[in-house]
């Protein structure tokens, strides 16, 4: 217990933001170097070629750029959704399920209301249903957490799979054609319930919505009363009570909002771009969003960059793997490595290492 080591650790006070980002930047650069080394070993490319291929994969053509932007928008949207909860230190890892249930609600409206209401009305109803479904998925864990301290990490995790199986169930109920186990494109001929395409670009509306959402979320967290309550509750329940904040109400309200925005993203996915429902529609982005939000220290503006970094890498690595015939999971490996470096680098922003000269106690 009292072994005298050469080094001891002390908790650092908060570093100024530019130093934090400098440490982060160094970590990202180191991670990229490490990733390119691995890529070189696997493909025989030189580092310049590696990065130009990655860049080409993400932004090489107009179409690639649009797809990158669409991926970015979806990931950023989910990250924005979970951020209020995370700021409140509510570990919601159920975004995957909250988005999927939103997708399911949207698809349900589009399928069951086809031919019964106008396309415009259908969009409105689907949107409302998606928001509601996501909100319910957010409300349940929050309700139990606020009242009985039920572990929210495990709760939201289970809710993910309940949503997945529900979606799987309805996919078979609505499968087209029978026996295919797939829904296919919903309302392909009538395009009923599809979000309109604006500016001739399929993804533009989605991108605009998420851009507006980013701004709104920034304002909400930074300037609204709710945002302030969330920040105080996240810091200390005692301080919150002292300031007259009703802690339980804030927890439930914030998770309902969080879930509803997840539902919105689900709506955008189904009604806006995919026009179908599969159990893998969210594709793990609910989990990736946790990391995006956390890496940006819950700042919506910072999240633009962290989600861009991850999407960029994913797209680029996909390009590398298809050009060189590697497996597409190559992207996940690179993402993992980058994340490990950034996660590890946080140690240096939170702690300082002291060198101990004499044999004094490391207290």
């Amino acid at each position, binding site marked *: 217990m009292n072994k005298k080591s050469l080094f001891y650790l002390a*908790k650092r006070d908060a570093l100024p933001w530019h130093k934090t980002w400098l440490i982060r930047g160094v970590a990202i650069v180191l991670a990229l170097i490490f990733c390119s080394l691995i890529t070189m070993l696997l493909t025989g490319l030189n580092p310049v070629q590696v990065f130009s291929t990655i860049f080409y994969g993400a932004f090489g053509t107009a179409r690639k750029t649009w797809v990158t932007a669409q991926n970015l928008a979806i990931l950023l949207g989910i990250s924005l959704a979970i951020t209020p909860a995370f700021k409140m230190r509510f570990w919601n*890892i159920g975004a995957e399920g909250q988005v999927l249930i939103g997708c399911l609600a949207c698809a349900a409206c589009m399928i069951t209301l086809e031919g019964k209401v106008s396309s415009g009305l259908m969009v409105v109803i689907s949107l409302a249903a998606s928001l509601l479904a996501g909100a319910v998925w957010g409300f349940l864990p929050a309700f139990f957490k606020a009242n009985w301290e039920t572990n929210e990490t495990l709760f939201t995790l*289970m809710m993910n799979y309940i949503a997945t199986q529900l979606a799987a169930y309805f996919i078979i109920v609505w499968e087209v054609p029978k026996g295919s186990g797939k829904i296919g494109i919903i309302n392909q001929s009538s395009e009923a319930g599809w979000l309109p395409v604006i500016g001739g670009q399929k993804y533009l509306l989605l991108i605009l919505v998420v851009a507006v959402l980013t701004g709104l979320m920034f304002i909400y967290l930074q300037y609204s009363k709710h945002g302030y309550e969330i920040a105080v509750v996240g810091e200390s329940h005692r301080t919150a009570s002292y300031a007259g904040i009703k802690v339980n109400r804030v927890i439930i309200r914030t998770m309902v909002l969080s879930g509803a925005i997840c539902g919105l993203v689900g709506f955008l996915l189904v009604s806006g771009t995919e026009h179908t429902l599969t159990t893998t529609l969210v594709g793990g982005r609910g989990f990736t969003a946790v990391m995006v939000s*956390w890496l940006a220290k819950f700042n919506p503006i910072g999240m633009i960059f962290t989600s861009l970094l991850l999407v960029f890498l994913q797209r680029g690595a996909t390009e590398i793997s298809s050009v060189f015939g590697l497996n597409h*999971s190559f992207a996940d490996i690179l993402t*993992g490595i980058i994340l490990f470096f950034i*996660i590890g680098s946080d140690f240096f922003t939170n702690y300082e290492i002291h060198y101990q000269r004499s044999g004094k106690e490391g207290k």
Partner: protein
Amino acid sequence: MFDIVSFIPRAVMQGIPLLFGSTGEILTEKSGNLNLGIPGVMYVGAISGVIGSFFYEQSMGGAPLNGFLAIAIPMVCSLLGSLLMGLLYCFLTVTLRANQNVTGLAMTTFGVGFGNFFGGSLIKLAGSDVPSVALPATSAFFSKHLPFAGNLGWFGKVFLDYGFLAYLAVIIALLCSYVLNRTRAGLHLRSVGESPATADAAGINVTRHKYLATCIGSMIAGLGGLYYVMDYACGVWSNNAFGDRGWLAIALVIFTIWRPNISILASILFGGLYILYLYIPTGTHMEVKELYKMLPYVITLVVLIIVSLRKKRENQPPASLGLSYFREDR
């Protein structure tokens, strides 16, 4: 007619990977580490074993395999792979005190990607027509069961008709249960998970216990992946086939309220629920099967809620689960 004699062995075979995974995760969580990277660890455990045996089979060039090596090589590779994952998790969360949830999720992304990437690469190396690697020779050693099991009727089918890893899973679970509850090491480990400051004051090395429990836990979980490929899937690796079993293992931890011995039966129950749809006549309603598959998660959720409502202290998660320990904080 519900064929219980064929149902149980299938439920058991579904349950064994979950049992490995949940036993490993229980051991890990008892030290206060909530390792959400377990799904990734199980993928790595599986693919490491596959890589090992793939190259061993290749090197033999079709000649009969040495039984010992055919088992030892994948086992060692698998253990090593998941050990490295455990070390990575510990280094980040214990030494560097990173957030456990984020680290775990990143490990799952990485681990699943790692498995599928190398799986995909092997598939290319093997030049196979189907998107999978088949290691039937190795698998034959793993799934070898008692020769007379078939002659003992239902008893043999239900109890004796499994490969050795299945029995190992049960033994490990019982052993973990014994160590946790009946030995000094277990007592010390549990105190680390409950109250690291108390353990530290009592002279218990918190860091060492966290590392040991998490690394051993990861290795046990990795064996679950190995069992899945080598025994359950008859030596056939195909990408993503392992599916969400890692998360199901984490669900099982909650369901058994952190008890490896209960996990033996519970994993079979989960395995049964997982395949129940095959045995329930659904007629034309194929979709109902998907609802059956939801059952393990719903039941786990109900258990989680009941446990928190009842507030019985023994049934709560380890008190410091998910938190990193820094002595100066006390």
